């Protein structure tokens, strides 16, 4: 199993360590529910060094990204970020990723478990383009601050950049803990305001400690991948292998904003497939809440009377709502807020109710 530059720090903090995407990662430092609440009310610090980080360079860097990605890289303003899929020829997702449009090229952040396959896939499609893809994952560390107090905490160790001027889904470069030209993006996977930082590998642990020291008075705590998963579920964000997979129909998964099926985008790998899958939609990704004690789990089926009408993609206990929540693909027509269904938990039926995603939105909270 691979280890991030922060591995020993997690172990020293007493984290429960698990295998995730080929990496030995912290699932939790304490209670997952408590960790979720900390992110919603104060701020959490995450080690995301396992995620794949690729620099795409060369005259045709943008053209290469536009050839393999579903979003329209050429249209992204410099300094902005877009969510995208990487699809096979059939339009089935190989991964989901973030595209950072630089002055010098394009930076991609992909899922740890798909990183090697993504790299081979993208390199395999360079064809005649003047572009190269450099895998920076093992040379760098990646940390995230997530929560309403993120900006205030990051500002304490940051110079030469105005964090307030970095909008959601945009990035800039500044001096973080003395490290000049550090990539700082206003992104995250929790539904909260927050930042992701890209650092030299050797500096990861030092910046982690400096952030903790600066943020502890404001309630900053290290947070594991367990809380991250349920926070992203509350925020209605897809997780590869759950809401998105090479077997599923991405046009049912509520990620249309990642698809640039416009004339301007032109052809790309999977375009025709995505158009066919759009016409073949039979279900839609929605939220579900359950009444009973059991948490919905991936693969469990949803019924209306005797008819199977849906399947669960993800489930968890919501720290914000205090109830069991899940995401599920539910047959069109029944994908409406409030529709009552039954969740089959190993032969036992438990009532479930359809909800619109997301369960939580920071811009919508009262």
């Amino acid at each position, binding site marked *: 199993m691979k280890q991030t530059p922060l591995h020993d720090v997690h172990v020293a903090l007493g984290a429960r360590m698990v295998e995730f995407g080929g990496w030995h990662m912290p699932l939790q430092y304490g209670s997952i529910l408590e960790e979720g609440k900390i992110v919603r009310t104060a701020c959490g610090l995450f080690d995301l060094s396992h995620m794949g980080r690729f620099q795409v360079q060369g005259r045709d860097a943008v053209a290469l990204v536009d050839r393999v990605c579903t979003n329209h890289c050429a249209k992204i303003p410099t300094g902005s970020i877009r969510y995208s899929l990487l699809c096979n020829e059939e339009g089935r997702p190989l991964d989901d990723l973030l595209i950072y449009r630089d002055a010098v090229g394009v930076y991609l952040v992909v899922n740890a478990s798909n990183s090697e396959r993504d790299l081979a896939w993208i390199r395999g499609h360079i064809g005649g383009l003047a572009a190269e893809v450099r895998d920076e994952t093992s040379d760098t560390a990646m940390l995230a601050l997530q929560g309403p107090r993120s900006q205030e905490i990051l500002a304490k160790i940051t110079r030469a*950049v*105005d*964090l*307030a*001027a970095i909008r959601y889904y945009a990035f800039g470069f500044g001096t973080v803990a003395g490290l000049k030209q550090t990539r700082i993006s206003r992104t995250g996977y929790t539904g909260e305001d927050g930042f992701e930082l890209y650092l030299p590998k050797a500096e990861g642990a030092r910046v982690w400690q400096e952030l903790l020291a600066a943020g502890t008075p404001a309630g900053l705590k290290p947070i594991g991948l367990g809380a991250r998963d349920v926070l992203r579920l509350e925020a209605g964000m897809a997780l590869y292998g759950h809401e998105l997979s090479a077997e599923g129909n991405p046009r049912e998964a509520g990620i249309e904003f990642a698809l640039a099926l416009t004339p301007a985008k032109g052809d790309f790998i999977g375009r025709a497939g995505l158009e066919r899958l759009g016409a073949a939609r039979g279900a839609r990704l929605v939220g579900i809440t359950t009444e009973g004690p059991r948490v919905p789990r991936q693969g469990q089926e949803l019924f209306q009377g005797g008819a199977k009408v849906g399947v669960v993609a993800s489930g968890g206990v919501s720290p914000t709502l205090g109830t069991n929540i899940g995401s599920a693909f539910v047959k069109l027509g029944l994908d409406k807020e409030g529709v009552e269904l039954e969740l089959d938990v190993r032969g036992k039926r438990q009532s479930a109710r359809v909800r619109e995603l997301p369960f939580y939105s920071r811009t919508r909270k009262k």
Partner: protein
Amino acid sequence: MSLPEDAGVPAAREPWRLLLTWDGEPGWNMALDEALLQSADRRAVLRFYTWKPHALSLGYFQRWRELAPQAGANVLVRRFSGGGAIHHSDELTFSVAAADTHALFHGEVSRSYERIHGLLARVFAELGVRAALRGEQALLSERAGTGMCFHHSTPLDLAWDGKKGVGSAQRRRGGRVLHHGSIKLGASALEEGVATLRARVPALEPAALAERVRGEWERTLGCTFAREEPSALELEHARARAAFYRSDEFVRRR
């Protein structure tokens, strides 16, 4: 970047309304513009004004906390138009309201900026100030993160001496448009590094500049002006709504 020589606008039959309201109270200034936007589809109007006391106006979508460091002891209002904050001190402010089908405003919003900024550039040229659209060049007036309109620029902004000198914003509502413009005469401590006309034309006063803009407006658009006062209805609206524009409810809405 070159400026359009003329906007190619046909002569309007009806005279424009010309309003001059000097030393307006900040909330009242904004409320009167709201009244002008509401009646804009009947006759086009060009209004020139100044502020007493001086005030800081926030753009409609700005977060007031981000302007808190700049706010200080200033009177605060929020505009219903977009963009960044402006310190209305030593400046000539104008508002133009008309239907969105009017020759000045029809088509893309960016075209209307080109028309208005092109017109102003000709006025400034008469004064010996060579202003041009910023285009892709970087400006010396850029300041990261102050939230101030003049510290941030786009390719369509008007600049001279490498600095931004005119702030512009619009509101489009129900087929009508109101364009806000702010032309810097003198410097403000809150707007460090921006271009001012007085740096080149020392004795320039708001009323004299307004007269020059009016003249160029007539030449460019082929229109005439009728000097008027705001109508009784507009004045009533402005009186009733002035407090709203400086209220915490509106200023701190975001």
